[in-house]
């Protein structure tokens, strides 16, 4: 079973605050799922892994580096994007100050 510390570390990496009572359940659930998907490592799928392609009929799609405003679904939607902002003051969108003085 993965440890409590591992769960807490994962939560920190995933930017999730965990409730104390949630940790034990996650240890159990994640371990069960990892046990199940562990069949991948025992299966003979490792040796020919050098030439992995992305599945199916997917390939790179390139285009000329020119603007295409007409097709941009966000064109002219600036106001709507602003309206979605959680905190606004007058003309401004408010975000947290992230540069702080060393004390």
């Amino acid at each position, binding site marked *: 079973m993965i440890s409590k510390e591992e769960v807490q570390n994962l939560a920190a990496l995933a930017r999730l605050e965990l409730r104390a009572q949630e940790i034990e359940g996650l240890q159990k659930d994640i371990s069960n799922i990892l046990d199940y998907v562990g069949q991948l490592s025992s299966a003979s799928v490792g040796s020919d892994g050098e030439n992995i392609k992305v599945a199916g009929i997917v390939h790179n799609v390139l285009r000329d580096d020119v603007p295409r405003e007409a*097709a941009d*679904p966000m064109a002219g939607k600036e106001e709507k994007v602003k309206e979605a902002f959680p905190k606004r003051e007058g003309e401004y969108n408010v975000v947290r100050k992230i540069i702080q003085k060393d004390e």
Partner: protein
Amino acid sequence: MSNLNQLSITEAAQKLQAGEITAVELARACLAEIEKKNKDLNIFLEVYDDVLAQAEAADARRKAGENHPLLGIPVAIKDNILIEGRRVSAASKMLENYVATYDATVIKKLKEAGAVFVGRTNMDEFAMGGSTENSAFGSTKNPLDPSRAPGGSSGGSAAAVSAHMALAALGTDTGGSIREPAAFCGLVGFKPTYGGVSRLGLIAMGSSLDQAGPLTRTVADAEILFNTIKGKDALDSTSIAIQGPTLAQGSQGRTLKRKIGVPRHLLKEGVEPDVLAAFEKSLEALKAKGYELVDVELPSAPLALSVYYVIMPAEVSSNLARFDGVRYGLSLKGENLIDDYAKSRAAGFGPEVRRRIMLGTYVLSAGYYDAYYGKALVAREKLTEEFRKVLGEVDAIAVPTTPCPAIKIGEKSDPLSMYLLDIFTVTANITGNPAISIPMGMVEREGIPLPVGIQLTAAHGDEATLFTIGKDVE
């Protein structure tokens, strides 16, 4: 005129065109059904207040000479598909009050065709689940047996059509989220070839797996919806053009071999006996229509669920990183910026979403990447190749869509046992093949007959074969 809401798209389109009914009458019939049952079944998170106005506009367009099979047809939309100016929440507290800033490409196409949007349907939060129990806004009940779940994650979309609250619905399918609820609600559910339908404007879950598609009463209806929403989109670089409209004999210039592959090695255990019996009966019916049944082997298929439960959470953890409470969605204040993120995400995401983000973070973290994600990519490629080979020999591969009929609400409390419902559906998402679930009869549970589905999978881009064989299954 009564029961207009029980018509198929095909039937309704004929009556609309003949002038026997109007889009407004159709819309009223659906709204009346919603009024009667939605409160108990919790199918729609929101019924739009302009449904009749949309229907009037459709009637006006028909008067002006337009004639598309979807013009004036009431369609329900899963709550993870963007319609400009309307709320879209992915059934999450994170986006509870979010208003879409643009139309998804599928919506743009449906608007051009003149479909009437009835409302947004309940789903598992961010499409993560197989029962709609993971919605932040309560479970949806299966209209055929309200003690049971409608399946998921497109459970609201399936229930809406099953309960005759709309003639058809759009869902999204990342590991079976259209096909499984279709099977549980007695409908046709279709997941197109990966890229066949643009993903622009879908709230992303697993970007290499997600596809939007129809939930309908008939295969012909699914075909109409698919032909309307498909197509290459400059704004989704993974989208592709699928050739050919409806063909009597397969697409891609192929002629039907009239051979159906059955991977019997996958059906030896885990499928409930009466579901298997219904499947055999449905195969026999195909045989009687001149199809040859061929035993096929897909040696890597038993790994499919493992591949899925590595790749999907990995993509989930990446895709859902965008929900940070800074630009939109739920925003809570903590001690500092990192704390703001952690608090907003903890309060905004439900338990299953958090679990999958954690799992995805694990399988992508240094030291575990090769053991899980790396292996899963190799297995994915192997499986895709095995499908390609088998589908060179047969037109389609048939399996039951699910191992059992609709589950009881609250029946599967452990995540892994819930994941096992996806055992036959995840494969098509991993390999990118198109797959359709079609009703194959009923099985009885506690005295109530419940539908089950047969799933057919075809070669990439060969949707026409699925529609052709699908009509022979019906």
